[in-house]
């Protein structure tokens, strides 16, 4: 097994998670190095989303360890894991439906301010937070929908808002669950460019995606999950040529 080089930002080691008798994840070991985009591919039901759920603390692992930046996180509640530097998006978008885009960007800011400041109106409270929210808003090109309620936005825009909310928290690691699902080619290309820019800014990204062209063009490293087992890993050209992968995933999907 050759894991990617350097001390990884996130490392899963022998992670197992079963629901009843079904092993959603069996002894999964993988790593996300600093400043890289790592992809997880695999057929439906392979355990990809379960993996995100154990990383973010939604589920407890049965066995194995998960280490973020040298610190074990398996016993931490979700909000602590988030504050430790992991942000995520969801396959079925989960925004705060009645809140505006701008409010999403304010509420997801890192948790630094004093209790008093948090009780003051946001527009007086923290100029740094407002600047940060404005930066993220512009980065994702959401200025025009700043004051729209999330629920009322088109699907592709909602995906962007979800990513923007995740980025606002200044994570070390961003988990994306099918970031371009339901998007057309042009929109997906837009997202790809944004993600590359984020990576070049030092962010590490772990993503699940079914759009193979998107994954192959974007990821620095790939893991292939099938029935909860990591069956292959490598750069995209290596994975693409791996017969096990062709059999488990590409062959069936195509």
């Amino acid at each position: 097994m050759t894991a990617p080089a350097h001390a990884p930002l996130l490392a899963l080691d022998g992670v197992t998670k079963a629901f009843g008798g079904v092993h959603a994840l069996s002894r999964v070991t993988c790593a996300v190095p600093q400043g890289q985009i790592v992809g997880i591919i695999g057929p439906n039901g392979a355990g990809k989303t379960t993996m995100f759920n154990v990383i973010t603390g939604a589920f407890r692992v049965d066995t194995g360890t998960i280490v973020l930046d040298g610190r074990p996180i398996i016993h931490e509640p979700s909000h602590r894991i988030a504050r430790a530097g992991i942000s995520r998006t969801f396959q079925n978008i989960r925004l705060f439906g009645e809140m505006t885009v701008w409010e999403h960007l304010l509420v997801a800011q890192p948790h630094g301010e004093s209790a008093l400041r948090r009780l003051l109106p946001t527009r007086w409270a923290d100029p740094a937070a407002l600047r940060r929210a404005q930066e993220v808003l512009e980065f994702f090109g959401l200025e025009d929908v700043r004051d729209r309620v999330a629920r009322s936005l088109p699907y592709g825009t909602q995906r962007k808002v979800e990513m923007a909310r995740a980025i606002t928290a200044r994570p070390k690691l961003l988990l994306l669950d099918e970031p371009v699902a339901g998007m057309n080619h042009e929109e997906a290309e837009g997202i790809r460019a944004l993600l590359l820019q984020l990576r070049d800014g030092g962010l590490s990204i772990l993503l699940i995606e079914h759009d193979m062209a998107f994954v192959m063009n974007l990821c620095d490293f790939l893991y292939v999950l099938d029935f909860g087992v990591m069956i292959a890993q490598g750069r995209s050209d290596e994975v693409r040529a791996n017969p096990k992968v062709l059999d488990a995933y590409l062959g069936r999907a195509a």
Partner: protein
Amino acid sequence: MSTYYAGLLADVGILLLGALSVYIILATGQLSLGNAAFMGIGAYLTSYLTVELGVPITAALVIAALASGAIGVVVGFPALRLKGIYLAMATLGFGEMVRSFFLNFSAMGGAGGFHGMKHISVGYIWTWAAGILLLIMLLEHSRVWLEMRAVHDDETAAGLVGLNTTVTKVTAFGAGAAVAAICGGLFAHHHVYIEPGNFGFERSVDFVLAVILGGSTVAPGAFVGSLLIVLLPEMLRSLADWRLAAFGALLIVVLLVRRQGILDRSLFRIMTLRGNPT
């Protein structure tokens, strides 16, 4: 001002505080049908403090709010494990529990009630009611309130952006209980007589109704709802015995036409944010 109108105005102010106590808790997605219990705790505690210990009314209200808030936090913890209708039932049970406690609490009159409080003015009631309404309207622009709304809209996602949803929900329960206690203290010193029956299930329902009717997403909704619940039955007096039936019918009509209540955020945005894009 005639005594009649002064009485109505006092009722609106007291109901407004009760409605706000529900509103704060509801802002985090928790429905409490037991806030009359916190009102009762506030009423009995302030009355005891002013009558038996000679504490000034304002100090008594503050002490009662703190005590009730602490009880609210304690009640808020088991409430974390319940959602929707189950939470509503549990809070209803809590309300009945507290009511029957006062029924058997002979040190303060039990079923016979408690009296001896000094009457307070309508102005005093409204100083508290308006003050707390304005305070909440200010808080609605804060980070803390955004966190409450995030928990209301999607608790899981709120946790995953780093919000401590437990603290948010329990604190909201405590704050709601504190406001309900002030409501109770003012009620006791307005009527100068209290009995356990004042703090029953119907009272809790009135609070919730005022919020739902007026609009549960903006604090002034509680004001509009309280105004309607107190004044409509009076305005329908010409219908004599039928007035409560007519009131019920009107309620249903309003909720059918505007499910979100009379006031809501988008109406507010249209009214207040022209030329002020925040």
